[in-house]
């Protein structure tokens, strides 16, 4: 009688130690948009350990090669592993020394294959990635999820950003935003996320990638307004409610 499952299966209870079941240290949303000169991306610097805000200095956006910028939400250790894979990829590409370099489209394709194949083995890299870049004047902005769903758009977001930031971007994004307008729009989205996402913190970085290269701002915080008079004494006229 044949055994029901092969020995190296990842699906029995004993195999739970060999695959990712749930994330431990997570980053929250990343929001990115295309503007006149390239891509703008924003992410806060928080790494949550369940419901505790354990790490407040996590850089969730990194440059990949000369032309791309990667932002990640989800498990931080898997993000670091992805960076190692991409390091190897870029190194291998540089060793060819042929004057050609991997652009954002190629890196996005690589990431899609990576994420999808891990998902097929029931051992996913628990991240939602945003890959943006510009090569030879062509801007590219794409996203890959932990199950391998990938697409390309003028503005993308991960996690809560999909619900809170995308509606704003759909209404207010337009072609050829200037740098200041792009930053203002990103800050608007990040502010709403700060108000309404419990795992967001008020310490964010904005990264910009253009033909000249990638720059990432120093961490800073957004101005918030908590002084609406209606919030100060909400039940003033409504005796008996809370």
């Amino acid at each position, binding site marked *: 009688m044949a055994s029901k499952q092969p020995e190296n299966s990842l699906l029995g209870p004993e195999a739970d130690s060999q695959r990712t079941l749930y994330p431990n240290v997570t980053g929250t949303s990343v929001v990115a948009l295309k503007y006149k000169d390239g891509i703008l991306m924003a992410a806060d610097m928080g790494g949550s350990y369940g419901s505790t805000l354990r790490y407040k200095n996590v850089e969730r956006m990194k440059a990949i090669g000369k032309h791309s910028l990667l932002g990640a939400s989800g498990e931080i250790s898997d993000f670091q592993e992805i960076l190692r894979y991409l390091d190897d990829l870029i190194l291998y590409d540089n060793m060819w020394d042929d004057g050609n370099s991997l652009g954002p489209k190629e890196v996005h394709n690589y990431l899609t294959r990576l994420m999808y194949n891990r998902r097929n083995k029931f051992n996913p890299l628990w991240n939602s990635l945003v890959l943006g870049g510009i090569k030879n004047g062509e801007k590219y902005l794409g996203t890959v999820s932990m199950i391998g769903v990938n697409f390309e758009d003028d503005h993308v977001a991960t996690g809560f950003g999909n619900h809170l930031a995308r509606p704003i971007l759909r209404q207010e994004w337009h072609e050829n935003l200037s740098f200041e307008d792009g930053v203002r729009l990103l800050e608007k989205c990040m502010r709403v996320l700060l108000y*309404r996402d419990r795992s967001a913190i008020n310490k964010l970085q904005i990264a910009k990638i253009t033909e000249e290269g990638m720059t990432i701002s120093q961490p800073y915080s957004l101005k918030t307004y908590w002084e609406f008079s209606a*919030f100060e004494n909400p039940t003033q006229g409504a005796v008996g409610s809370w």
Partner: protein
Amino acid sequence: MSKSVIEMPPKGGFSFDLCKRNEMLAKKGVSPPSFRKTGTTIVGLIFQDGVILGADTRATEGPIVCDKNCEKIHYMAPNIYCCGAGTAADTEAVTDMVSSQLQLHRYHTGRESRVVTALTLLKRHLFNYQGYVSAALVLGGVDVTGPHLHTIYPHGSTDTLPFATMGSGSLAAMAVFESKYKEGLTRDEGIKLVTEAICSGIFNDLGSGSNVDICVITKGGKEYLRNHLQPNPRTYTSSKGYSFPKKTEVLLTKITPLKEKVEIIEGGDAMEE
């Protein structure tokens, strides 16, 4: 054979009798039937002189839109209106019930209803049913103590807020409110902001759609703007109606009645009981 236990009439509220049976079934792998969540975007906003409520008009049965133009802003009292999200039957029934209770209360006291009265009646009922009455409401009105806006959750908790959103499209609408709300809005600014928030829900949430309903309540009275905005009109309707292509030539017309004509006799015999 006489029963030793006196039969007590049910006191109302949630009956926990079947909970043990449900637990046993769940252990055996029988999953309970899931609730059909009707997607919605409902919002409320306090402005200078009163309250503005807004809602979309799509009613869904799972993946199908069953009503393209339903009314989600329910009447509670001449000065109080309530938007409902969740199971449509629950929101209708619970708002109808409390509306009648408020009417009786008005007759009893001889005074205009207060928003906190509606609030308390609703939350007591919902808490009694432990969240099984799946109604998430945005209650707004103006009474002698001023304008009020409350949200009521299916389990019976309430919040008192200057701006509120509920339903599956609540995050899309809240994104608009959080970025554009300011104090001391005028009537027109308020209506514009509420419309924008509902439109954000309509276009970004699959459970919401069709038109925007608005209700403006002030000390002077109320204005129910049904279908204030219709951003999803039917496209490509032919004004001429349906017509056959011109190449079809009519050669012969012959009409054959398939049934005898029915004759109606006035003042015939009455039906037998």
